[in-house]
């Protein structure tokens, strides 16, 4: 069973603001799911190579040149989505 402090720590790492009640529920649910994962202890996989992808992935290289003509309105479209901005800058709250 996860401890409450552990769940709080993970929530902070994940940048998720959870209420007391939500933390409690999360603790119960995550613990149950982690118990289910215990079955992966049944067989020894120490010699098995891990797979990150289903297909063999290799780096794909290309020339460092402009590929697409950027539509004229693209910057505006992106900036229009910003919740708070000043002119063409994104505004953020103070970090410290």
């Amino acid at each position: 069973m996860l401890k409450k402090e552990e769940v709080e720590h993970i929530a902070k790492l994940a940048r998720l603001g959870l209420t007391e009640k939500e933390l409690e529920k999360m603790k119960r649910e995550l613990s149950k799911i982690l118990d289910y994962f215990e079955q992966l202890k049944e067989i020894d996989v120490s010699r098995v190579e891990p797979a990150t992808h289903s297909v063999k992935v290799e780096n794909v290289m290309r020339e460092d040149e402009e590929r697409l003509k950027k539509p004229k309105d693209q910057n505006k479209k992106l900036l229009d989505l910003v919740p708070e901005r000043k002119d063409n800058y994104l505004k953020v709250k103070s970090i410290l």
Partner: protein
Amino acid sequence: MNLTELTIRQTHEGLKKKQFSALEICRAYLDKIAKEDKKINAFLTVTRESALLQAKKIDEMILSGQEISLLAGIPLAIKDNILVKNVRCTAGSKILDNYIAPYDATVIKKLQERGAVILGKTNLDEFAMGASGENSAFGPTRNPHDLSRVPGGSSAGSVAAVAANMSCGALGSDTGGSIRQPASLSGVVGLKPTYGAVSRYGLIALVCSFDQIGPITKTIEDAKILFEAISGKDPLDSTSLEFKFQSSLPNFQIKEVCFGVPKEYFIEGIDPKVEEIIQKAIKKYEDLGAKIEEISLPHTKYAIATYYIITPSEVSANLARYDGIKYGYSTIQSKKSKLKSLLNVYLESRGEGFGEEVRRRIMLGTYALSAGYYDAYYLKAQKFRTLIKEDFKKAFQKVDFILTPTSPTPAFKLGEKTEDPLKMYLCDIFTSPVNLAGLPGISIPAGKKGNLPVGLQIIGKPFEEDKILQVAQTFETI
């Protein structure tokens, strides 16, 4: 003639013969949506004006005697995690409620180049996380065959739209079964392509190493038409690949095909009627002269644990971009956060913007990747992924295709599994191994339990979609 009951092929033939116009077709579907969708909730956005405009364009082409492509004037529905320029794209989440897509996904470009008519965007479990359609921030979609039941998920709206004749075809996305499982529960055809067969550019990322876009249709021929249109290498997705797709396989003979039936897929917990329908389907192939062989995929029982470690891990990384700063739901301007710090904006925007299942997976993934736990969870799951891949590889040395049920049960009741996340996760038991191995798979209607459809899953070798479709078509035409 009921226009909304036609397949893509039939609609195309009718347009060419001028039996009806593209505008009439488009209006018929829009009317159907207006009439039926209040009770089904398949669509989040209906793009009425642009659809009618596009239909008119196709009619002009036809009138002026131009050749039209198979998809010209065909009304399609698009899962709302695929970007269509200037149209709202929510991914079923409150955090993207106000998000307007600034560009087109590659699959959308390809459909538009062929003249397809986009009717709208369909409902889904939030960020495609779910197997019932109930995790949407915009309310659940209902199964057209029985409104008290779920259509399956996460491509809930896309399958429901096709099943209820509110769209001629649709696109979905499949990460652990999100095309095939709902196709099975809603009685339509759903193809999950090989990883890399279809560009993911413009698909809102869930799990980058599993996600694939694929067609949802009424018939297998229609699935083939859509798949041919959207597949192929895209410079904007470096994991996409060029491959050979044969539109027809003149030398195909069902007598020369060997099917594998994995014993691990006929286990306790499978609905007896589902098992009966699938065994009958297998028998049909046998009666046609195909060889049937029992095979073993010994690590199947570990697939769900493996999948639900890797998926949340990638989810926690992929969804870090929703920060309340660049786009989407944000508390940055709310009065109570005026004096707070950047961290508060993150915590509040994400805590309030994401739904329960999304938060759960972000937490799980963050835990699995955090210091001290990486080896025990993520790395270990990747090793199991290797074992599951190897299982399939070995099987495909002996057999050409693998036949399984798509889902252990037919459509379940709304609310039946929402209280227990693990129960919902187990819905993916027959579909997620295919994503772990990156293989292509299709679900086709195989029978019914009462009025509830049951799907047969056909799994093939990488980039053999043409053969899977051929084998599926053989079944469909018996």
